[in-house]
């Protein structure tokens, strides 16, 4: 079965991407060698989130295993824009698939710098905007506020020809309101869901376990929540949705497509199985057939009754 598709004009061999921050091809290359490149698990690669300045990330602990899920508080460690562009980015553009760079900032000015700088690099296919961070000017978390989101999109949209995909936060009452605002501001696509605010308690010492005090939940535990949000958003906007949150196999990937996502992304499942992306891709034809779909397009076009 032909699984090729596209997202925001980026051609894809399959509808299976990775979630930002859940796969590092450079480290994986050290562990797995060239086999990683020869059988690259994703149809496009989404980088971890890059900020303007270097971030070392949060103090340990950064992980807590939850029932059918994972809480992380990694803290977006990254080399910062300059070092990223001069280093890792060059290697990432050499991957055999389109590259989407994820960026985050705490002001429109910094976001602009990130978008403009990344856009100048050859081999970048798209930019994902991580808006789960407070705006230094308003103190508000951009992605929680439709107005802030729309204003940010309007500022960034003219700065690049690359598609701009906005990664929504799930920690809101009505994600579709933020999605509608993002679309109005010129977003080309929506990526969702990011992790859900969560806490973990050290069972021995009765204190918070995570070094940063709190974290975000991902994995199968959040899938029912992600499906509800993807459905609400995809029926509210025209732009395509990259659906994620607990995808663990082809069947659950297809659930996201049925809920309205154009393509899906694999996050935490990568940690359980380094080849999770390939596993999902390889299982999709069978999953589509079992549900009576003749093509991926038919599933993408279907709506839930």
């Amino acid at each position: 079965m032909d699984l090729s598709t596209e997202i925001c004009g980026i051609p894809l061999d399959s509808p299976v991407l990775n979630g930002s921050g859940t796969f590092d091809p450079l480290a994986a290359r050290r562990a797995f060698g060239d086999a990683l490149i020869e059988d690259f698990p994703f149809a496009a690669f989404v980088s971890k989130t890059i900020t303007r300045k270097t971030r070392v990330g949060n103090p340990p602990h950064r992980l807590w295993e939850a029932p059918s899920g994972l809480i992380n508080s990694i803290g977006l460690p990254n080399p910062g824009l300059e070092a990223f562009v001069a280093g890792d980015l060059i290697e990432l553009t050499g991957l055999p698939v389109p590259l989407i760079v994820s960026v985050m900032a705490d002001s429109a000015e910094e976001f602009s710098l990130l978008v403009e700088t990344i856009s100048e690099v050859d081999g970048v296919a798209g930019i994902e905007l991580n808006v789960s961070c407070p705006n230094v000017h308003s103190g508000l978390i951009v992605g929680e506020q439709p107005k802030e989101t729309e204003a940010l999109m309007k500022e960034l949209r003219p700065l690049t020809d690359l598609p701009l995909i906005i990664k929504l936060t799930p920690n809101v009452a009505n994600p579709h309101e933020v999605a509608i605002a993002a679309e109005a501001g010129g977003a080309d696509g929506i990526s969702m869901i990011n992790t859900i605010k969560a806490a973990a308690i050290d069972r021995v010492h009765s204190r918070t376990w995570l070094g940063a005090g709190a974290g975000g939940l991902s994995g199968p535990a959040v899938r029912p929540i992600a499906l509800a949000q993807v459905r609400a958003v995809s029926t509210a906007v025209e732009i395509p949705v990259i659906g994620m949150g607990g995808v663990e196999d082809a069947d659950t990937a297809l659930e996201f497509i049925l809920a309205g996502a154009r393509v899906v992304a694999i996050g935490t499942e990568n940690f359980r199985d380094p080849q999770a992306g390939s596993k999902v891709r390889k299982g999709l034809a069978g999953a589509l057939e079992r549900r009576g779909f003749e093509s991926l397009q038919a599933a993408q076009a279907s709506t839930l009754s």
Partner: protein
Amino acid sequence: MVVDDRPIAPFNRRECAVAETHPAGGYRVFTLVDEQGPEPDPGQFYMLTAGDHWQGEAGRPYLPRAISVAAVTGNPGALRLMFLIDEVGPGTRLMAALEPGQTCLLAGPFGRPFSMPKALNPKAAGAILVGGGIGIAPLAILRRALVKRGVPSRTLLGFRDRAHSGGVDELFGCEETRLAFEDGSSGHRGYVTDLLLKVLAGDDPGGAVVYSCGPPMMLEAVRSICAESGTACELALESPMACGFGACFGCAVPKTDGTYLRLCVDGPVVSGDEIASAMAGEAA
């Protein structure tokens, strides 16, 4: 991209048969047959998922668990990987309950292995292995590798009591190994680091190389003893891991410069002077 000379893991998570299991003191030993992987280097680990029932009553274990390889026999194509398990939670509980005929899902080998003594210190005359508790596992495979290369080594192992000294006889053989028991039930009464101090006192410090794995407190004591005596040392650390191959950035251990290393790719073996403290990864 960084490419180093550590063994390259097959790019997959593969099903491996459980060949043999038995108790060993307070621990449990099991052997898996890996038909695809290369021979691991000492200090490397695998990410393991035991049997069909990963995820118990409470939805955990969900992620695979990092386990050091304690011994390897056989040849690529039918490697026999031996693991030593300390039952501390739901994941190790399932591993400790494995029986021949069952399977595990395995990815790896992963991580930075121990360096050979001469690479750590060109003047190295031999190696001192300092292990405690379940931390004896990576030292066992290291010791065999040293023996194979004809590098002289002395092994110092510490345990709470005899009941918790499982695996010593079969993994090390008793002759060349000196044991410390906190409860004095045999060997030296006290800590293994007492033995290390004695050994180092009798040595030319310039020619000693120390390898250590064990509880954070012990590792930290070894690290500072070596730092003070100017002895080169490598420590095999632990930290909670989700992936084992650099994908999650969860296994951070603070370095001396205020940044963090990813223990699964930049470790689990680190040199004593790389890290701020062997205990920092433990407590938030």
